[in-house]
C-alpha cells in the first residue's frame, strides 16, 4: 500500500477541513470558553458532524457508520487539530466506538454502534485512576454479586465524561494492581445508583470528568468482552485511539507552523520582515522537518491499524513522535511570535493547551517510548 492518502481519503480530508473551518473555527472554542459553557461544545455542531458521517467513521455500514477506518478518522482528527473544534468526537466516535467494536458482543454492538454513529449517544472510556496512564495498575474493583457485579472505586481524566450517556469502565475482577490479567470491562449508564460524575474543566477549555463508583450495581450483561481478559481485548482499540490522537496532535503542530510562518512573513522589526532572519528561518525549517517526519509515522500507523494485526509498536511510535513534535511546535510557535504569542487575545495559547492534554491522554511520550522499546524487546 502506498504511504499516501488515496483519492477517497483525500476527498474526506478536504471536506473535513472545509467543514471545520466554516462551522467550527477556533473562535467557536473561544466563545464557548468565554461563556463558561458547561458542555464545552456546541450540540448543533455535533449533530452536523454526525450528519456528515464523522461520528461513524470507525463504524461499519451495517451499523449506520461510514466505515472510513483509522485513516479516515485520523484524517478528520487532524483537521480538528487545526481549528481545535470541540466535540465528543474523540470520546465517543473514536474510543467508544473502537472499544465496543473490539470487545463488544454482537448484541452490544447492535445496541451501541448505531447510536454512536448517529451522534445520539455519547459513549466514553473510563480507564485512568491516577495522574499517569497505567491501565495495568487498575484498582477499581468489580465484585461478583449474585447475577451481576458491584463496582467500587474512582476514575479520572475521563474524556467528555461530563456528558457521557454510557461509560465503558475498566475494573479489576481478580489479581492485583500491576497485573494485566484480571481486568474486565463494564458498561455503566448515566444515572445508575452510586455513580457520581464530577465535571473537570481542563486547560484545553474542554471538559473531562472524575467519576466515582460507590457500589454501582450492574447486571451480568454489562460485561464487555471476556471476564478477566479486558486488557488484551481493548488494547487494539486503545491503540487505534492513540493513533487518532496522534493525528490531532499532528494537525495542531502543522497549524502552529503555518501560523508562525505567516507571521514571520509579515512582522517587521529593525526595519525588516523578521522572516529574513536566518535564526528564525532555521527554527521554522527544523520544525517543518520534524512535522513531515511525524506525518509519515502517523500515516504509517493509521494504515497499519486498518490492515489489522499487532499494531502496538506502530501506535506507540506515532503517539510518542506526535507528542514530541506537538510539544516542539507549540513551544516554538510562541517563541517565534514573541510577546503577542503570550497574550490571551491571540489564539496560540489554545493550541499549546490542547496539545498538552492530548499528549497526556492514553500515555505520554515517556509511556510510549518505554512501550516502543518493550515492543522491540529491549
Amino acid at each position, binding site marked *: 500500500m502506498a504511504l499516501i492518502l488515496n483519492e477517497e481519503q483525500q476527498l474526506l480530508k478536504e471536506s473535513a477541513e472545509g467543514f471545520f473551518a466554516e462551522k467550527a473555527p477556533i473562535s467557536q472554542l473561544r466563545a464557548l470558553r468565554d461563556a463558561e459553557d458547561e458542555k464545552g461544545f456546541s450540540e448543533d455542531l455535533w449533530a452536523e458532524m454526525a450528519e456528515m458521517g464523522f461520528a461513524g467513521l470507525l463504524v461499519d455500514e451495517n451499523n449506520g457508520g461510514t466505515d472510513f477506518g483509522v485513516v479516515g478518522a485520523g484524517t478528520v482528527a487532524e483537521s480538528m487539530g487545526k481549528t481545535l473544534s470541540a466535540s465528543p468526537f474523540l470520546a465517543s466516535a473514536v474510543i467508544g466506538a473502537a472499544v465496543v467494536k473490539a470487545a463488544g458482543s454482537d448484541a452490544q454492538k447492535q445496541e451501541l454502534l448505531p447510536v454512536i454513529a448517529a451522534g445520539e449517544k455519547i459513549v466514553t472510556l473510563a480507564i485512568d485512576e491516577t495522574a499517569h496512564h497505567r491501565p495495568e495498575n487498575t484498582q477499581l474493583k468489580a465484585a461478583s454479586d449474585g447475577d451481576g457485579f458491584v463496582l467500587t472505586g474512582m476514575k479520572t481524566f475521563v474524556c467528555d465524561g461530563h456528558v457521557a450517556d454510557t461509560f465503558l469502565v475498566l475494573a479489576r475482577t481478580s489479581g492485583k494492581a500491576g497485573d494485566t490479567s484480571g481486568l474486565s470491562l463494564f458498561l455503566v449508564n448515566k444515572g445508575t445508583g452510586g455513580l457520581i460524575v464530577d465535571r473537570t474543566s481542563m486547560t484545553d477549555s474542554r471538559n473531562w470528568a472524575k467519576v466515582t463508583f460507590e457500589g454501582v450495581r450492574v447486571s451480568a450483561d454489562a460485561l464487555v468482552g471476556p471476564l478477566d481478559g479486558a486488557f488484551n481485548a481493548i488494547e487494539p482499540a486503545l491503540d487505534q485511539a492513540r493513533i487518532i490522537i496522534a493525528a490531532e496532535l499532528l494537525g495542531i503542530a502543522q497549524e502552529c507552523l503555518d501560523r508562525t510562518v505567516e507571521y514571520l512573513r509579515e512582522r517587521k522589526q529593525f526595519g525588516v520582515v523578521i522572516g529574513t532572519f536566518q535564526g528564525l528561518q*532555521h527554527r521554522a525549517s527544523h520544525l517543518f522537518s520534524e512535522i513531515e517526519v511525524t506525518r509519515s509515522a502517523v500515516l504509517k500507523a493509521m494504515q497499519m491499524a486498518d490492515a489489522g494485526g499487532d499494531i502496538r509498536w506502530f501506535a506507540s511510535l506515532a503517539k510518542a513522535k506526535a507528542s514530541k513534535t506537538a510539544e516542539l511546535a507549540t513551544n516554538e510557535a510562541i517563541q517565534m511570535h514573541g510577546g503577542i504569542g503570550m497574550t490571551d487575545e491571540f489564539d496560540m495559547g489554545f493550541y499549546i493547551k490542547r496539545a498538552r492534554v492530548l499528549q497526556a491522554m492514553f500515555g505520554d511520550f515517556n509511556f510510549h517510548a518505554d512501550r516502543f522499546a518493550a515492543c522491540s524487546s529491549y
Partner: protein
Amino acid sequence: MTDVTLETELIFEWPVFSGTQFGSEWERVMTDLETFQSETRAWLEENCPMSMRTPVSIDDDACWGGRNFRFSSEDQKLWLERMAARGWTVPSWPKEYGGGGLSKEETKILASEMRRIKARSPLTSFGIWMLGPALLKFGNEEQKLEHLPKIARGEIRWCQGYSEPNAGSDLASLATKAEDEGDHWVVNGQKVWTSYADKADWIFCLVRTDNTGAKHHGISFVLFDMESEGVSTKPIKLISGNSPFCETFFDDVKVPKTNLVGEQDKGWTIAKYLLTHERTGISDMGMPTPLNMLAKDKLGTDDDGKLPEAMLRHQVAEHEIDAASFVFTLERAKDQAKAGGDIGAFSSMLKYYGTEINKDRHELIVKVNGSDALEWEGQYSNDGEIARNWLRTKANSIEGGTSEVQLNIISKRILDLPA
C-alpha cells in the same frame, strides 16, 4: 556512501495497476514477468559466484572498476564481467548504452532476486549513480555512446569535481577557470573533497567559463581524463584517519570543447540535478542494523528483557522513534514521487534529517560500546572501526550541502520565507 538513490529505489516497486482494470493485458504482463523472474533466478543461481553472496564488509569487497583497478579475487572479476555482458550493472539503462534495457518491473525483479541470494552489487560507481543519470538527461548522442558503455562495463572510473577551497556550501562561487582557446579550453584551479580523485580515470567537473554575470551563470559542466597533462591529486587525512577525499589541482589542463555536457555557461542546472541525486543518496543510508540490537549484543538485557542501563535505553528508544519515523518518510516521499507528486526541495529535508539522524546513531553506538569504542588501533577493535566510523559521520551534515544550507533551501523554497 551508498549507491542507493531515491530514484533507483523508485524502480524497485511492483506495478500498481490492478487486474480488474487491465484484464487480459494485465495477465499477459504478469505472465511475462513471472517468466522473467524464473529465468533471472536460474541465471543468478548459475552465474553468481558463491563468494559474491556474502555481505560487503571491508573496502576491498566493493568493486569500483576502472583502468587501474585491482580485483580482490577472480570471482569479483568474473561477477562483474558476467553481469556487464547482460547489461545488468545498469539494468534500466537502454541497451545501446551498455544497459540491460529492462522495464521498471523487470529491474525490480532483478534487484529482488539479487537480494534473495544476497548477491553483491557487481559494480560500485559514481559513473552509475551520479554521472550516468546526468548524461542520459543532458548529454548528446556521441557522449552517451562514448561514456555510458564504459561506465556500464566498469572500464572507466569517475570522480566528481565540485567543491573548491572557497566554494563549499556556496558552490556557485566556484573559480576554477576555463579559458577559451578555440577548439579547447585551458583549465586552471583547484578542487577539494574530490572522492577517490587519486583512483579515478576521468572527472566530471564544474568550471567557470564566464565570470561577468550572476554567479550561477557562467558555470560549465565538462568531462576530462585525469591522465591529462597538468592534473595532480593529493589525498586528505581526516580526524577519522585515511579518507577517500583528495585535493585536485589543474595546471593548464587542455579540455576539448566536445567534452562540454549541455550548454556552455549553463552547467549549474546539471550540477543541481546531480546534487539532488547525491542528497537523496546520502539521506538514504540503507537499512543498518537497528541500534537496539547493537546495544543488546554489547550489554545484554536484565530479567525484564530490558537494556540494563535505564538512561541509555531511553536514549536508544528516543533515537529509534526518530529513525523509524524517518524511514517511513523516505517511503512516503518515494510513494509521493511515484504518484506524480514533485518532491523537489523535500529532498533537502531528507538530507538534513537523514544525516543528523545518522550522526546521532553513531554517537549512541559510541556510548553503547563505551571505552571499547575509543580504541584506535589493533585487532580487537578492527583498527578503531567504531571510532573511525563515528568520526566520519561528522562530515555527513557538511558534504553534499551542509545542514544549514538545507535549512536555507527549506526556508526559501518550501516555507516561502523572504531572503
